[in-house]
């Protein structure tokens, strides 16, 4: 009697019991449903259409900028700079935490009001917590003679637009 039990027992342990089968099925389907819910939530929370301004900005006639001038376009958050070498544009968003910087004519620097970062006219970092220089943006001349800036395309610095 006792021996019989010993021989049959390992077999039953290898088999899956009804209870454990349903537990596994239940947990498995719960896992799949959770993953689906997460994917659904992620997709739902990411807007497919954004009503944000176009990255391409018209900065007006090139002739309206004087040589050695720095002009801040507040609405589009860019600087349009005209030096003797030519034109260029730069993001006015501080590379630290995204505040809008301002051009200080009397000091000849760009300064951020939030945490005191300073940049040169060419965007080089002079002081403060900002980790990177202000990025230069792709600038070109439209057929109508307007300066165009694409805020989504960063270019290497010191690539002046000569007209």
């Amino acid at each position, binding site marked *: 009697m006792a021996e019989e039990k010993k021989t049959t027992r390992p077999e039953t342990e290898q088999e899956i019991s009804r209870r454990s089968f349903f537990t596994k099925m239940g947990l498995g389907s719960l896992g799949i449903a959770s993953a689906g819910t997460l994917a659904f939530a992620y997709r739902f*929370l990411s807007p497919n259409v*954004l009503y944000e301004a176009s990255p391409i900005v018209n900065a007006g006639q090139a002739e309206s900028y004087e040589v050695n001038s720095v002009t801040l376009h507040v609405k589009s958050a860019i600087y349009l700079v005209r030096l003797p070498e030519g034109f260029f544009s730069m993001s006015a968003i501080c590379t630290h*935490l*995204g505040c809008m910087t301002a051009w200080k004519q009397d000091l000849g620097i760009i300064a951020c009001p939030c945490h005191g970062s300073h940049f040169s006219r060419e965007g080089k970092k002079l002081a403060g917590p900002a980790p990177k220089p202000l990025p230069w943006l792709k600038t070109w001349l439209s057929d109508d003679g307007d300066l165009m800036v694409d805020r989504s395309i960063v270019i290497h610095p010191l690539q002046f637009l000569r007209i």
Partner: protein
Amino acid sequence: MAGKIDDYLAKLERTRVWRSVFRGGTGSSTLRRALAIQQNVFLHLFSTKVRRRMLRFNATWYLGTLTLGTFLILVTTGILLMLYYRPAVPQAYADVKDLQFVVSSGLFLRNLHRWAAHTMVLLAFAHLFRVFYRGAYRPPREFNWVIGIVLLMITLLLSYTGYLLPWDQLAYWAITVGSNISATVPVIGEKVRFLMLGGHQVNANALLRFYVLHCVILPLAAVLFIAVHFWHIRKDGGLYVRQSEPVREPAKEDESVELEKV
């Protein structure tokens, strides 16, 4: 006259309607008192009996209760402010100005909401420090400490989401800076920021998301965790009192027996 009112109240308490609402009723017996607490949906989170010295001002400085008090003020004033505030870009700023200058008592309610919010953060931190320095976070109360930290996070998130709603320059740049901080999280940072703001900039979507978080999701989470926090006080054997502390009223202390876990 007073006797008449007492008679009337006694009669009222015997009516079927009253008995169906207040099942246990009151009474001077220990059982009746215990039932009055235990059978009340709000009070049953608490211990049916507490030690007198736990209720002394010195034991806790009532910091947790005061934090709850500010939360209740915030819920009340917040619901009233919602009646005049629209979380949309063209209206939000003007609505807040209307609350300040046009709506009767609007300025009072807005200021009360703001000051209560500051006070709640202050009190939550004070409560945390008090619990920490008295060692009340130690077993068996360690999980209630964790719930307390969750509640502190919810409090700070409520503060942060509420900060955007006036839609002024201070709000705009504070949320710009704050969301850029979250973008510095490695790998997922940019995505977190995008989901949080519902876009790349602090704009209409961000205002609406912060409004829903501030007025619905975070308060519900706070209420849930507050309930568990209070319930845990009972489960962990009541408020923490140092054994070495002198008992001022020893006779009465003995009178209230330690409560059983109901």
